[in-house]
């Protein structure tokens, strides 16, 4: 046995190459340094569960959804495997974002780790690429329309818009060629790129050493930094394994446990099968894109064309220029309050937009059909007829009365107190702002009935 181990050690260079590598000295660090390694472990889990899913998944529009139904309902523990892949994706997006925020906050992108940051930027980008292509493979209604919405944004690009749309669709419309391309992108292309970038990222972590926890008043200086870092390792460094590594293991295990429990307790939904002829649907992206979906609803239409193209490009540009704009100087967030501000503003904005995305107050509620009985019970004659028109003519899809209805337009529960009969009639006839004009579709009698009904709401 000993002889076999000795032989392996000699041939593989375990004690001469591998041992020094995992025992290389690192600064003493806190729990925040475990986010990066947990992202790596989450990626490994995605690869393993993804490969397992690929054993069964059929990447063609006529059977993709059914194969996922089989995985979810019939295959032994298939729903857990799929659940781990689903919640693992959420974990990866959260972890890679938190890792980027943490590296930004502690100024670890500065000299000499600029390329660590740039490779990390690409890893962040491609993680979102995995999230986008992954949600499409479900091939449900949300997936189908996510491709279309993505293509509609690409179509806004000047000159190459149609070309980009053609690339995304792999043809004239979403069809047989679309899914296989997203599949190949999701399981071969982006993972291969991520493996390469991860290799570079980890190599650079070893080459430059993991950044030391920042100390306020000790700025990074190109001339002295490396010497100071070496001295720090010499005096206070600890071997990565196991002195620092045990924390990575504990945190990754905690993340893994949460993902597994979520997969068992909240197995992901499949939604309805993609069908371009079933038009009564509420397409929504997975949460990692829902905040952007909400943003596209809320920005003023005048700046939309520019925004759709420039916002992603500008965001990318900011990431790329960051280590060159601020390559040296203070690293501590205490001396860089603007860095804390940027992270807080970004996190709060995304959270607020996510909340808005789930509520979608800008969308007509296409399922709203009836006013509450408390509103209609006492009505008679013209006002009763008006309340029925309010339900059938689409008013209720956008306006709430006593808690029922859409949120697109103003709440009309007490509109009679705000507007007189003439103003009400004028609004309905002409519309305005975002309200359609009903002048051509309502008869004068219907119009006055509606005004009677609304005028009585006080």
């Amino acid at each position, binding site marked *: 046995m000993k002889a076999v181990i000795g032989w392996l050690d000699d041939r593989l260079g375990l004690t001469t190459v591998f041992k020094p590598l995992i025992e290389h000295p690192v600064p003493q660090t806190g729990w925040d340094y475990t986010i990066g390694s947990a992202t790596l472990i989450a990626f490994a889990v995605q690869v393993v569960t993804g490969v397992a899913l690929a054993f069964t998944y059929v990447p063609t529009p006529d059977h993709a959804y059914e194969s996922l139904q089989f995985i979810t309902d019939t295959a032994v523990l298939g729903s857990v495997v799929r659940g781990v892949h689903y919640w693992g994706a959420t974990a990866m997006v959260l972890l890679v974002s938190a890792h980027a925020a943490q590296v930004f906050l502690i100024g670890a992108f500065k000299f000499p780790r600029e390329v660590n940051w740039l490779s990390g930027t690409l890893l962040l980008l491609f993680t979102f690429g995995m999230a986008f292509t992954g949600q499409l493979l479900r091939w449900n209604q949300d997936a189908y329309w996510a491709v279309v919405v993505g293509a*509609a944004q690409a179509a806004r690009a000047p000159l190459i818009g149609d070309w980009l749309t053609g690339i995304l669709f792999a043809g004239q419309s979403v069809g047989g060629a679309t899914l296989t391309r997203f599949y190949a992108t999701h399981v071969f292309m982006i993972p291969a790129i991520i493996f390469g970038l991860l290799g570079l990222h980890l190599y650079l972590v070893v080459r430059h050493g993991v950044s030391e926890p920042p100390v306020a008043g000790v700025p990074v200086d190109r001339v002295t930094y490396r010497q100071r870092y070496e001295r720090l390792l010499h005096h206070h460094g600890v071997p990565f394994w196991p002195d620092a590594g045990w924390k990575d293991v504990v945190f990754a295990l905690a993340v893994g446990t949460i993902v597994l429990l979520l997969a068992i307790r909240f197995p992901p939904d499949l939604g309805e099968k993609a069908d371009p002829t079933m038009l009564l649907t509420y397409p929504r992206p997975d949460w990692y894109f829902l905040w952007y979906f909400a943003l596209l609803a809320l920005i003023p239409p005048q700046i939309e064309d520019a925004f759709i193209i420039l916002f992603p490009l500008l965001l990318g540009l900011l990431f790329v220029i960051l280590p060159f704009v601020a390559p040296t100087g203070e690293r501590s967030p205490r001396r860089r309050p603007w860095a804390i501000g940027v992270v807080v503003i970004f996190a709060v904005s995304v959270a607020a937009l996510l909340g808005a995305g789930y509520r979608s107050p800008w969308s007509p509620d296409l399922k709203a059909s009836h006013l509450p009985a408390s509103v209609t019970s006492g009505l008679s004659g013209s006002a009763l007829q008006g309340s029925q028109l309010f339900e059938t003519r689409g008013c209720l899809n956008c306006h709430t009365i006593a808690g029922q209805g859409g949120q697109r337009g103003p709440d009309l529960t007490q509109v009679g107190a705000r507007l007189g009969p003439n103003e009400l009639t004028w609004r309905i006839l002409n519309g305005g702002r975002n309200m359609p004009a009903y002048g051509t579709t309502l008869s004068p009698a219907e119009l006055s009935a509606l005004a009677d009904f609304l005028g009585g709401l006080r």
Partner: protein
Amino acid sequence: VSEQQAPDNDVVSRRRFLSRISLGLSALAAAVVSVPILAYLLSPLLRPAPQEWRDVGAVDSFRVGQTVEIAFDEPSPLPWAGQTAQTAAWLRRNSDTQFTAFAVNCTHLGCPVNWRADAELFMCPCHGGVYYADGTVAGGPPPQRLVTYDTQIVNGRVQLLTKPVSFGEA
């Protein structure tokens, strides 16, 4: 005098030549290999988009003033396209002889608009775009009216000319 002799000029230029020719040949090989791969991957862009007239029903099956959903086959769908071989559209019969076929895609970001017959409006479930019965914008973020397909009547049947999905008329 050092024991190691500096390589003479011949050796240096020979090494440089070998290095350059090796890299050059490798680059050439990579370029040659990538031509068919790129052409294969970009083929959907290189192929002209076929357009075909599709029968969507008898003229008499549509009532004047009504808008209904129709579905038609895409030109030359792949055998494994399943349900996505079809595309839907909204067809309005304006008069005895005139039809308008609207693309279902909202011109804002492409989501499927819904015809609400009683309200006589198209409503989009994504970002709240609203259109009148004639496809013009009634509210919300859409930058332009709904895209239409060409239609014709042949032997009492309504036909629609397919076209690539677009999110607005140029």
